[in-house]
């Protein structure tokens, strides 16, 4: 790499994949900036721009390590890659021989572009125990789209069909700063300039609240009721898209009957949203079309996960927004085809899939091929004979990220052999038997295809990784080569060539090109009117229609119509508990500077926000003698944590919203239980019957100031 060279790559600091320009001089990065000639138009967020502090962080892992002493003692011995990989795969082989393939668990955290490699490794071992947080984050939404519409829908902010959204609704989503799953904030903000209406459904006045013409301050966990109430208005006032509903939906009559149980006045009582606002929002959504829906993860992090999503998808269907320009579209992928095939193409034996953790209960989880993490850790805690014996985790911190951290921790300690691949000695890595050092995205080649959308781009190595750190792709391939060589490749470049083969382009060529895309006139709309999904038209569902009445859910024995259930803990479902824990707790306060458990050791980001924050309404704070910046205890029946009070008038005084995934890299014990919001959450049943999702956004808590004598 020559001096002053400019490298075009793709950011992997979150899901989004912004276009990046990196300047490299003398083998070192001197600048990171957005690429103006990319789909993200040169924009980047704080996390991506601060990546230089990751690349040159002195605390990065450099060599494979083997545990010395007891688990968690943080005593390590440097070993070679050969020894590390062979130790891991030998443990996997032994577990498979003794207990069957499901004794091996392959896990990753939130999607990072290598999802399909994680899935391929699990599939090639033959295990059904592929672990990820998908049940509470995005995969459940995809599955609900699949069974209702036949494929995922994304808001069309591009105008390729001649129209931009007239109405945009941000339902529990702040795409402007977080969670770019397929859509990017820059596209949304540009479409917002053109939109006539902007509706926010959120317990909190979000950063864009002053620009919304309607903010529905919803009680956390009641989203399905709100959507059902809006459908009640739209159907009873005859405002739905009659042509679309008549020709292209299944079960409208049953849906019409169902929504009669949700008149606006009753929904107002459930959701705490005033009746007139529910009616107004419903009328706007039905008449001011096309409408683009941005749907957020809180709908999934709920014991009513499937029906929350079903209700909102039915709402966007009956208002005629499916496949309409400026509405909700299933993008046609590029000529490279569906890259996710790389993960799915190896068949997992039927007995493995049936026997995956939670597979007997959560049928949508089985369809997604991702096992139920809460069940995996429960089986471990209870010494269940079906439990996982060997676990390989890549880019994930279950101790911080899954519900009920202390229970997860107890389960993790019982794993027979644990290997963890990460950039740092994370809280989870510390308890591993073997730790693998991972290269940063600026040190890796890769194909960035976090989500099937209308383009994917090249991640191009800018600098060498520290020590012997290697890319995630390399690690997966090397493990794969040792455990199931028939499914893996001589080197990573050959994997990329294989993934790109349908586009008739090699990795070397793609790297220079930077991306493959299908935009403008090449993106078809109204695909259900053609033979695109089905001869003679229709959707890829069992009935060929958008299933307002879902035949798949009926077959599995779940409610085929959208419905509302009260959160497990709430003023109404557990009034006795509410007397002791008188606030509704959401752990959904996202930050600008961290992505789940990441970046707490990034000096530029950490100085922006050194401590966790909990939003408390000023009236509530005053009553409890809490001032802005005070450390506050937040307590549930599971335990208590402390965060700093952020007095914020943009929430209901009865609601408290904490940040999640906090740990302290600078503390000897990582401060694992001090501020970690999942100390407060629970994986106790009942969870969502179809996906196993648990509630992270609607629990009960009490709060009080940290003072001498209670610390």
């Amino acid at each position, binding site marked *: 790499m020559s001096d002053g060279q400019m490298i075009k790559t793709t950011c992997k600091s979150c899901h989004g994949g912004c276009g990046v320009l990196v300047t490299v001089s003398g083998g070192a990065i001197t600048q990171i900036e957005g690429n103006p000639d990319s789909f993200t138009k040169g924009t980047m*967020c*704080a996390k991506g*721009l601060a990546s230089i502090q990751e690349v040159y962080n002195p605390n990065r892992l450099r060599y494979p390590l083997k545990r010395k002493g007891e688990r968690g003692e943080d005593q390590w011995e440097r070993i070679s890659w050969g020894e590390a990989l062979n130790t891991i795969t030998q443990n996997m082989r032994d577990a498979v021989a003794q207990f069957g393939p499901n004794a091996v668990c392959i896990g990753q955290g939130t999607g990072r572009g290598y999802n399909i490699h994680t899935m391929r490794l699990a599939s090639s071992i033959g295990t059904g125990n592929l672990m990820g947080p998908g049940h509470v984050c995005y995969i459940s939404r995809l599955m609900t789209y699949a069974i209702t519409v036949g494929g995922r829908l994304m808001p069309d902010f591009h105008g390729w069909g001649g129209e931009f959204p007239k109405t945009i609704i941000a339902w529990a989503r702040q795409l*402007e700063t977080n969670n770019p799953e397929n859509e990017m904030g820059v596209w949304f*903000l540009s479409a917002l300039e053109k939109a006539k209406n902007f509706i926010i459904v959120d317990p909190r006045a979000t*950063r*864009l609240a002053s620009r919304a013409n309607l903010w529905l301050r919803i009680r956390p966990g009641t989203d399905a009721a709100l959507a059902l109430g809006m459908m009640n208005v739209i159907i009873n006032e005859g405002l739905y898209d009659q042509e679309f509903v008549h020709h292209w939906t299944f079960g409208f009559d049953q849906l019409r009957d169902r929504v009669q149980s949700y008149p606006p006045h009753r929904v107002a009582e459930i959701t705490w949203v005033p009746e007139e606002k529910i009616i107004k929002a419903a009328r706007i959504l039905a008449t001011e079309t096309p409408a683009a829906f941005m749907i957020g993860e809180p709908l999934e992090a709920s014991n009513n996960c499937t029906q929350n999503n079903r209700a909102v998808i039915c709402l966007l269907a009956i208002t005629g927004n499916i496949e309409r320009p400026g509405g909700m579209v299933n993008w046609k992928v590029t000529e490279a085809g569906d890259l996710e095939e790389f993960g799915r193409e190896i068949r997992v034996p039927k007995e493995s899939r049936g026997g995956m953790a939670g597979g007997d209960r959560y049928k949508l989880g089985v369809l997604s091929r991702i096992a139920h993490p809460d069940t995996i850790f429960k089986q471990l805690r209870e010494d269940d004979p079906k439990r996982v014996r060997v676990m390989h985790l890549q880019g994930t911190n279950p101790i911080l990220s899954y519900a009920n951290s202390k229970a997860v921790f107890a389960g993790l300690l019982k794993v027979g052999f644990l290997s963890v691949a990460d950039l740092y000695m994370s809280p989870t890595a510390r308890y591993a038997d073997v730790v693998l050092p991972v290269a940063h995205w600026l040190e890796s080649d890769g194909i960035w295809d976090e989500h099937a959308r209308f383009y994917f781009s090249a991640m191009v190595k800018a600098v060498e990784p520290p020590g012997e750190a290697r890319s995630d792709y390399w690690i997966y391939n090397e493990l794969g080569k040792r455990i199931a060589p028939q499914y893996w490749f001589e080197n990573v470049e050959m994997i990329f060539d294989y993934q790109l083969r349908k586009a008739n382009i090699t990795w070397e060529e793609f790297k220079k090109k930077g991306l493959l895309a299908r935009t403008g006139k090449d993106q078809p709309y109204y695909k259900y009117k053609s033979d695109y999904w089905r001869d003679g038209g229709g959707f890829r569902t069992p009935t060929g229609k958008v299933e307002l009445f879902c035949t798949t859910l009926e077959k599995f024995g779940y409610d085929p119509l959208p419905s509302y259930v009260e959160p497990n803990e709430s003023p109404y479902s557990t009034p006795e508990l509410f007397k002791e824990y008188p606030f509704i707790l959401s752990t959904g306060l996202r930050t*600008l500077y961290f992505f789940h458990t990441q970046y707490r050791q990034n000096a530029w980001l950490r100085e922006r926000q050194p401590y966790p924050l909990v939003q408390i309404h000023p009236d509530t704070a005053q009553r409890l003698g809490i001032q802005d910046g005070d450390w506050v205890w937040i307590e549930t029946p599971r335990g208590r944590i402390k965060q700093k009070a952020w007095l914020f008038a943009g929430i209901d005084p009865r609601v408290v919203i904490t940040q999640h995934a906090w740990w302290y890299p*600078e*503390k000897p014990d990582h401060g694992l239980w001090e501020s970690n919001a999942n100390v407060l959450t629970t994986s106790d049943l009942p969870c969502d019957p179809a996906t196993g999702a648990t509630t992270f956004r609607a629990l009960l808590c009490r709060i009080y100031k940290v003072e001498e004598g209670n610390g």
Partner: protein
Amino acid sequence: MVKKTIFFDKDKCIGCCACIIACKMKHNSPPHPTIPPQGEPTGMNLISVYHFGPAFSEDRVIQFFQPLSCMHCLDAPCINVCPTNAIYADSETGAVLVNQKRCIGCKVCIWACPYGALHLDSKGRMEKCDMCIDRIKKGKLTACEATCVARAIFVGTPEEVSQIQAKKAMAKIKDESPG
């Protein structure tokens, strides 16, 4: 080149603070010296973002974010008070720049700045936004403008800024006019 100014549009800013990190990247700014667990970080950035609200008026949410850096004033008080002529306006762009070799760290410029946009660096020399002068002279956007997802930062001539504001005012009048 016509003299340029920086415009921060509080009606568009979402307070994501990417501009702050883009600025640190561009200027290779060291992390602030104090980080946890010793205490709250101390230190200033060349650009800041302030959060106002939310407050509520009837059914409206009043909340906005205001980025702020050196405004590159056309008649800059800091230039006028500097005893060593360390601060000067770039003749080509109008950017208000500092020659740190001449700076004696007397801080009078900090007193004079109506925006609190100046501070001393770790060596006690005045440090401020330099309008990414090397980028501007190459025809590129400043680091903060380039990265801004909300398109809330604009570096251009005062006339161009007037036009942006006039367009917004007209759109508002149109929205509020009957029919």
